[in-house]
């Protein structure tokens, strides 16, 4: 099967998380990749027209988080990706959870900003995503997170 045939959903909040996802774009461009973010305007700046909007949320906002989880589920049901990846934060994590529910393979790449410890979503992803990667070698552990390089 050709590379292009693999459908990928790549999700990240606006700001640093999105910047890191964009650094991965040369590789993501080899597949049928769809993007989801909390700031679609920023995506348009990068020339990505078809971007799925996600409501922003964090762990202190249960209602917004619930809404974000529903929207993430809607995106995943509509796009049916075979792979879901996220560089953070909570909205991307909800895309990973939604991906699991439809049988997608899921990958959490913890932000390069987290050089001291894994983010909370990163810690949850150790169990809930198929793979959880840290971008700092000293944070890697045999039972996850794993280290496979960094965007920088």
């Amino acid at each position, binding site marked *: 099967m050709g590379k292009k045939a693999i459908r990928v959903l790549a999700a990240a909040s606006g700001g*640093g998380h999105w910047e890191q996802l964009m*650094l991965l774009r040369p590789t993501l461009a080899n597949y049928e990749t769809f993007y989801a973010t909390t700031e679609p305007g920023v995506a348009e700046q990068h020339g990505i027209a078809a971007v799925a909007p996600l409501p922003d949320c964090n762990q202190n906002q249960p209602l917004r988080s619930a809404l974000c989880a529903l929207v993430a589920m809607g995106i995943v049901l509509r796009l049916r990706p075979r792979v879901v990846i996220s560089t953070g934060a909570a909205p991307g994590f909800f895309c990973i959870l939604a991906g699991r529910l439809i049988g997608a393979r899921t990958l959490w790449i913890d932000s390069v900003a987290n050089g001291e410890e894994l983010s909370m979503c990163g810690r949850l992803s150790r169990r809930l995503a198929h793979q959880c990667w840290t971008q700092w070698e000293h944070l890697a552990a045999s039972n996850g997170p794993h280290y496979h390089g960094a965007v920088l």
Partner: protein
Amino acid sequence: MILVTVGMQLGFDRLIAAMDALAPELEGPVIAQTGKGTYRPRHMEAREKLAPAEFETLVERASLIVAHAGIGTVVTAARHAKPIVLMPRRASLGEHRNDHQLATVRKLAGRPGILVAKDESELRARIAEGLTGHDCSRLASPTAVQLHAALAAFIENRQP
């Protein structure tokens, strides 16, 4: 053009004042995004905030970026393959809640296109190095090559 940025959240007058002092001897204009600082630069164009699109344009035009050690700024510089000089904020000087920027520069020092000035006394030398045309394409970074390969392997369901 050299772009100075301290992020949108906190002022960082120590960096802004040091760059204002250096600006007259630097070739070309210096534009500074100063955040909520109180120091008023006299030798460079200063803006408290820059809209994301304008910031993006300035990064693209800049030959060098001088910044606090904020990871968002480092990643933006990487995306545009621009060299960046980082000066970390210090908690003891009230510049941040903690010293995580010191940890950041310790870990990033030596990566392609990233130069570290541990304080203002090292800025002049690091700026000179940054302007001499380092290869700052992050595609040259071994850790980035590794991550891209691993990501492709994951997507294609192969062993990384």
